[in-house]
């Protein structure tokens, strides 16, 4: 990362730490949580989809498995949620490894990989809907017992800082991918897999490692979600919406860039709030939520068409032009 990039990142981190002091209403803190949470999940998508070029349409499956692993460990086996959190990450990582080994061995790339992840998430949804341990479509309700030892807090600001910490962890991970050999190998695979292999890169191994990492981080996010909302059901845990959101925040912010998901998530939430408010002002509109999703879809098309590196690409382009001038 350049010096400017570092300054920019440092500044945004300071702003994010200070945010709850400036905007202390519950609404503002929850909005901050949502932005950071989407940015975190988006970053886990970005690690596989952006840095290694493994576009996934079903990334939610790692989130869902993490959410169910920690929740079931707590409710059925009485495991402490902080320890269960670790198992959620392990569960996500294990699934990432399995999906990676199976699909990369079979040589699935591009659209085929995207579709197989979609199908895996669908299998997850159907299984969670049908087996007794997940309580089927009813979902699992966590007993409210707000104590820090219980990973539950009365004050929402705690979850804000937890997800901020996760976000920073994922940012660091992504940053490492821009400066380590592992990251360079992933970039080589993304740009031209055959050439990468010709150079002696074991692309199967690197891709599996990458998906395992991404799945583990994503699984950890699942636990945070359930601890905050105290509820999980199959359509939250394995629904297409979250997969799409992860993909959108990274694509719009800039796939394969460190700050992309954070910027994308911030922009999407601002756009979402604004469209919703504008939509609600229209006569006869009761639910303006779909309007913001229409804007997201249009943004995705626009990004793919004109800005393949997302908003980060816009910054870079301008910087390059400034340097040339």
């Amino acid at each position, binding site marked *: 990362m350049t010096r400017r990039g570092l300054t920019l990142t440092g500044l945004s981190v300071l702003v994010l730490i200070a945010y709850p002091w400036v905007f202390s209403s519950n609404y503002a803190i929850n909005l901050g949580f949502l932005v950071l949470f989407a940015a975190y999940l988006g970053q886990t998508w970005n690690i596989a989809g952006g840095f290694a070029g493994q576009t996934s349409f079903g990334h939610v499956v790692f989130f869902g498995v993490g959410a169910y692993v920690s929740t079931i460990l707590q409710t059925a086996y009485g495991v402490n949620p902080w320890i269960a959190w670790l198992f959620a990450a392990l569960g996500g990582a294990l699934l990432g490894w399995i999906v990676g080994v199976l*699909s990369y061995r079979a040589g699935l790339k*591009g659209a085929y990989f995207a579709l197989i992840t*979609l199908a895996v998430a669908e299998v997850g949804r*159907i299984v969670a809907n049908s087996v007794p341990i997940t309580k089927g479509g009813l979902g699992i309700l966590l007993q409210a017992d707000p104590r820090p030892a219980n990973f539950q807090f009365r004050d929402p600001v705690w979850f804000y800082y937890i997800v901020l910490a996760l976000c920073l962890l994922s940012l660091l991970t992504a940053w490492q991918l821009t400066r380590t050999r592992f990251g360079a190998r992933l970039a080589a695979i993304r740009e031209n897999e055959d050439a990468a292999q010709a150079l002696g890169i074991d692309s199967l191994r690197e891709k599996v490692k990458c998906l395992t990492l991404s799945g583990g981080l994503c699984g950890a996010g699942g636990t945070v979600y359930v601890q905050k909302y105290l509820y999980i059901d199959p359509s939250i845990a394995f629904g297409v919406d979250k997969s799409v959101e992860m993909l959108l925040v990274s694509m719009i912010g800039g796939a394969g860039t460190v700050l992309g998901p954070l910027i994308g998530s911030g922009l999407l939430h601002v756009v979402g709030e604004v469209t919703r408010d504008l939509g609600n002002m229209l006569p006869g509109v009761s639910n303006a939520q779909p*309007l913001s999703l229409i804007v997201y879809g249009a943004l995705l098309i626009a990004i793919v068409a004109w800005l393949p590196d997302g908003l980060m690409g816009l910054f870079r382009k301008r910087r390059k032009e400034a340097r040339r001038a």
Partner: protein
Amino acid sequence: MLTPEILFAGVINGLMAGGIYVLVAVGLTLIYGVLHIVNFAHGSLLMLAMYSVFFLWRKPLGLDPYVSLPFVTAGAFAFGYLLYRSLIGHFSHGKDENILLITLGLSIIIDNATLFFFTGDTQTIDVAYAGHMISLGPAVVALPKLVSFGAALLICLLLGLFMTRTDMGKAIRAVAKERQGARLVGIDVEGVMAISYGIGIACLGAAACLLMPTFYVSPTSGHAFVLIAFTIVALGGMGSFKGALLGGLIIGVVESIGGLWLGEQLGQIGIPLVFILILLLRPTGLFGAAR
């Protein structure tokens, strides 16, 4: 218990559903075969066509879905053609993932636009013949399902004749096989691609008319069909007509037997499982050429 009678009825019902799936999947496989694009918006476009059938049937017009079939099919063709000309063809830059993302964006827009304008309520149409039952041996089948099965296969047959007997069909096949070569002998490749996309979407228009007498439509209706259609196409082999035909019937039966055997909820697992297994074990499908 699965007695032979129940099993037979399950197979028959599966085949009936499979007929429609064939029609949906033929459109997808044509688009893939010719344009090499994975049309993720396929389910959403089907849903949109189903809504148009619903609105044509509703009060002021009151068109029977079978009567509106030629209109909806033609409209779907025009819509697909324009969509390709205005959006998909321009923005894809010829990259596989790009098209996937463009069509994903398109499906998000379509799904939410319908949700916004038509609300999330499920809509059904009432036709007098919907409850008319016909017995085939131990199985009982609703008349519209039998009609849709026959009509779907007939449309596939016509499409097959179009592809083999007409100049346009030959041009489409030429573009599918060898894009550069087709361009060199003077075929308007871009035009052929837009027409192929239009035909693929026209299949959805016909499928929507055949589906509506026994099915419902809501903004999320498309989701169910996306994975089904991709499974059929993967099973039959990407780009293969024969494959889509056989695959559609197989998937219809798999779905029906899965439901009988594993119950309503878990029975749905058959389709994604078949999809995953096919991609892992035999990615070329039954009739597909090596990728």
